[in-house]
């Protein structure tokens, strides 16, 4: 089961700053004797439209924290971040720009 996620999206200097936290072991090959467990894909959507797609590796630290920046934006814009790991587990979180 995927642990909690948390996200904050705030207007700053004409842009929207997005900070997202996700619970995940991000276990490396070394730590797991060849059975790594890590998030591979990240997607950031604004009002349903994909704006950032990330591919990440086992070298991202445990309990990943990412900051992104979106051009413009307005209060109430709906931001959605989702992830998919190498075992097929997924999670997502949504927030409105504050």
């Amino acid at each position, binding site marked *: 089961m995927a*642990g*909690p*996620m*948390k996200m904050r999206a705030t207007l700053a200097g004409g842009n929207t700053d997005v900070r997202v*936290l*996700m*619970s995940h*072991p991000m276990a490396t090959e070394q730590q797991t004797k060849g059975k790594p467990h890590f998030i591979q894909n990240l997607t950031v959507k604004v009002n349903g439209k994909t704006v950032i797609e990330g591919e990440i590796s086992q070298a991202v*630290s*445990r*309990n*990943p*924290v990412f*900051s992104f920046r979106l051009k413009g934006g307005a209060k109430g814009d709906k931001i959605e971040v989702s992830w998919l790991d190498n075992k097929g587990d997924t999670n997502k979180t949504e927030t409105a720009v504050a």
Partner: protein
Amino acid sequence: MMRAIIGSAALALAVVPAWAQQSPFADYQRMTRESAPVELFELSGEELWKKPQGPKNVSLEKCDLGQGPGVLRGAYAGLPRYFADVDRVMDLETRLLHCMMTLQGRSREEATKRVFGNADSPSEMEYLSAYVAGQSHGMPLRPGMSHSKEKASFELGQKLYFHRAGAWDFSCASCHGEDDKRIRMSELPVLYKPAVARPLIATWPAYRVSNSQFKTIQWRMNDCYRQMRMPEPVFGSEAMVALVQFLTVTAQGEPYRGPSVKR
């Protein structure tokens, strides 16, 4: 009100010891603070706080942490303190254990079976500490020092801090006793000095980047005694509370800035 907080924060900044400002790791520490997953632990802690558990199948929501049953705002900043219902001084973790036993009807043995977790599975105490401490963010630390037992606890903590014993003749002060010392590359804060203790004690509990774990102050005490080659302190014991009381009183007045991030 805001001004009061900002005022004391500025004051705190002015007394940050020279070694902390000059640390080669200052940039690293600032950047890891800004990008730590601390809030995840607060979220899980909130769930646990509200979750009915134990033989009585009730939550901890009525737990009295010193400000009245269920009052979380500012409760952590007021600990440790004397609790008349048990006639002793308690810190956050000890009081949480007390609430698990009294409100939820759990045994001490069951509730302390696993007080310190690991990266894959943090403990209930760690999650709960994150949540409760987070409700005191920005508030000055004001541990109780008016009751005679609060003073006695402080004095015992002070004695423990300097007490050398064990296979390798160590006290807390063996490592945390002189300015500008290191173990390997780790800088060693002299925690009996208020200027040093303030910023550090005001940031426990914390996420430790070295092992990606969220840790409590009783864990910190426990792990120091392990490395001092001493036997293991009992969780929630008077000795543990006394050390936390000694350190918190030494840091009193500092605005609480946790849960935070440590190396």
